[in-house]
């Protein structure tokens, strides 16, 4: 167990090292620097700017500098927002993304899983068809379409929720629904099929034959086993959702991390791109690692160290 954990941590660092190296080389192989403007910047000013941001050094030295900064959690200055550091951007943007992500994850878990279970228990009944139809729609309609439809009908036509921002608690409704739509549908479909599989097993029949009450059969035996594949998917998904969806934040004008990322892509603000990528990657990897470790608690059969 401990050696497995150590191995994972080591491979996590190697992954981060490779990601930073790759991103850094990619950034620096693009012709033109961050201060290239349409109107030519005088040579002297350009030289001074490059000197200030250490851009006159060889790429390898710059990379070492960057990694040195990374070790002390310093992601460098933003090139397009002069005077702010990438750290400030992340600290400013992440809470909004995380809040919406957290609410969306909670919604997915408390709505998606019960819906899947119910529709498996009522297989081929009207409620099952309705749920599965909605779930298929949820998977196929892109989130930006859902988001714009929500704004159009609930914010525009009916005026129930504000069309942008999260200053009002009602403002969370739109982004949370749009963000959770796909995963909610996916989770309910997954729960349904895994539940159907489990209900067909012999031990469920045995439990019923032994006269155990239906609630016990479902709660203690069926649902618990049916949830294992669901949790497998849930882990990385929550990690991805918590870091926010670019599109949702753009549509609902939420000042989250995703919005900064898209802006920095459009402004070619390399340090911000780099910083947010590294932040996302580390966050994602740590989350996946934590979820993997949580498996041992949920399913005692899973042992680490040996692959299937």
């Amino acid at each position, binding site marked *: 167990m401990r050696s497995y954990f150590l191995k994972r941590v080591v491979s996590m660092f190697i*992954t981060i090292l490779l990601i930073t190296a790759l991103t850094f080389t*990619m950034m620096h192989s693009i012709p033109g620097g961050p201060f290239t403007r349409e109107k030519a910047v005088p040579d002297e000013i350009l030289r001074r700017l490059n000197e200030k941001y250490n851009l006159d050094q060889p790429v390898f030295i710059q990379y070492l500098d960057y990694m040195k900064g990374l070790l002390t959690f310093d992601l460098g200055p933003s090139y397009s927002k002069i005077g702010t550091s990438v750290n400030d951007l992340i600290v400013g943007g992440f809470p909004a993304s995380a809040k919406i992500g957290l609410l969306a994850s909670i919604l997915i878990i408390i709505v998606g899983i019960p819906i899947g279970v119910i529709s498996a228990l009522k297989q081929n009944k009207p409620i099952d068809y309705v749920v599965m139809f909605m779930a298929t729609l949820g998977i196929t309609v892109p989130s930006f379409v859902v988001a714009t439809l929500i704004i159009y009908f609930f914010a525009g036509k009916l005026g129930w929720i504000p069309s942008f921002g999260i200053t009002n608690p009602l403002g969370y409704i739109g982004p949370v629904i749009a963000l959770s739509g796909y995963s909610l549908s996916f989770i309910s479909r997954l729960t349904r099929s895994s539940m159907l599989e489990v209900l067909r097993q012999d031990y469920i029949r045995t439990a019923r034959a032994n006269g155990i009450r239906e609630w016990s059969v479902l709660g203690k035996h069926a649902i618990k086993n049916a949830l294992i594949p669901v949790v497998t998917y849930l882990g990385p998904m929550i990690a991805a959702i918590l870091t926010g969806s670019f599109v949702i934040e753009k549509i609902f004008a939420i000042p989250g991390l995703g919005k900064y990322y898209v802006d920095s892509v459009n402004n070619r603000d390399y340090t911000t791109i780099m910083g947010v990528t590294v932040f996302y990657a580390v966050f994602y990897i740590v989350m996946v690692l934590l979820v993997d470790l949580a498996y041992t608690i949920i399913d005692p059969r899973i042992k680490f160290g040996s692959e299937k």
Partner: protein
Amino acid sequence: MNPNKFEFIKDKYDDAETSRPSLTYWQDAWRRLKKNKLSMAGLVTIGIILLLGVFGPMFTPYSYSDQVNKYKNLPPIMKLYELGGTYFYVSNDYNIFAVERNGRLIDRIDADRSRRDVINKVYVYTYQGEDVVLDFSYNLLPSKMGYDYDLTLEYRGETATQHSISRINRIFPFGTDDIGRDLMTRILYGARISLLVAFIATIVNLFIGIIYGSISGFEGGKVDEIMMRIVDIINSVPLVLYVILLMVWFRGGGLWNIIIALSSVYWVSMARLVRGQILSLKEQEFILSAKVLGVSRSRIIMKHLIPNAIGPIIVSMAMMIPSAVFTESFLSFIGLGVSAPMASWGTLANNALSGMITYPYQLFFPAMSIAFTMLAFNFIGDGLRDALDPRLRKG
């Protein structure tokens, strides 16, 4: 023993044989796919979309970049005011168009610049030598609140406050965008681009995934270990980030850049799937006998392993196409898509976003196109999974 007491039963066996002809793997899969109505509906839908995307643009009078500047932001369904036998359409930005009764646009009526009263909100236009007076001050000026109509239109002594008929726009059935381009043409072109990106990216993914996965699975040992570590590393970052980074690296849009970005990243899941299949297949007897016969390794992979693993590969491919369509529209949506004036469905949706409340149809059509395509591909994928699943083969 009297031989006459016996009879031949050969015929009966023959009957049993002929009642169910033997089917090949693909015939059997196709037979079961045909039973799945949703999948067939999906297949037909994709077929229609493909035909429309390939041949549709040839039959529209406009190209995707043609601008008719006077006809901007025209909706697919126009509310017409009838005055003195002439039909008028008033756009949201107070341009007036003369329209035939059946919904065919005649022309935009030019505003008389000198007779535009911006303060009292009364514009005067001239059509066929007579004045058309548009008064849109209702519910706008403080002195004119509480009306149940927003504008009045006056022509040849008649005044209208409500539109009399709604007609489909005959020239631009899906309307026009904010610089007067025909949305129908653009959506048909968009289908071309979205599906082209999706198909090519999926095929490239398929090739890389199959080659990578089968080598890794078949060789095993150290090679497998290293190759799978690489896959793990790629997999431990949200793939959208990689795609965005690649797109930045390519310095923005361009059809081929998107295809390269998508296909250089999304092969990972395919490689894993193929490796898993190969791992379980390579221990079987027919591979052993092939090895004993001295068949080369590449031939074993190509002729024996991959054909036997093709079912799950095809299912995963069918699921990959919609996610490629989705990723492409996502990239276009955040501004890293194909470069203007070319447009994919995602670009169209993105362009429509700013005017969404006023011109909802501009978003409706591309959004519906994406949703329908995704739905159709998902149905096909579901059906293929059921049809190719060996556990269900008895049915």
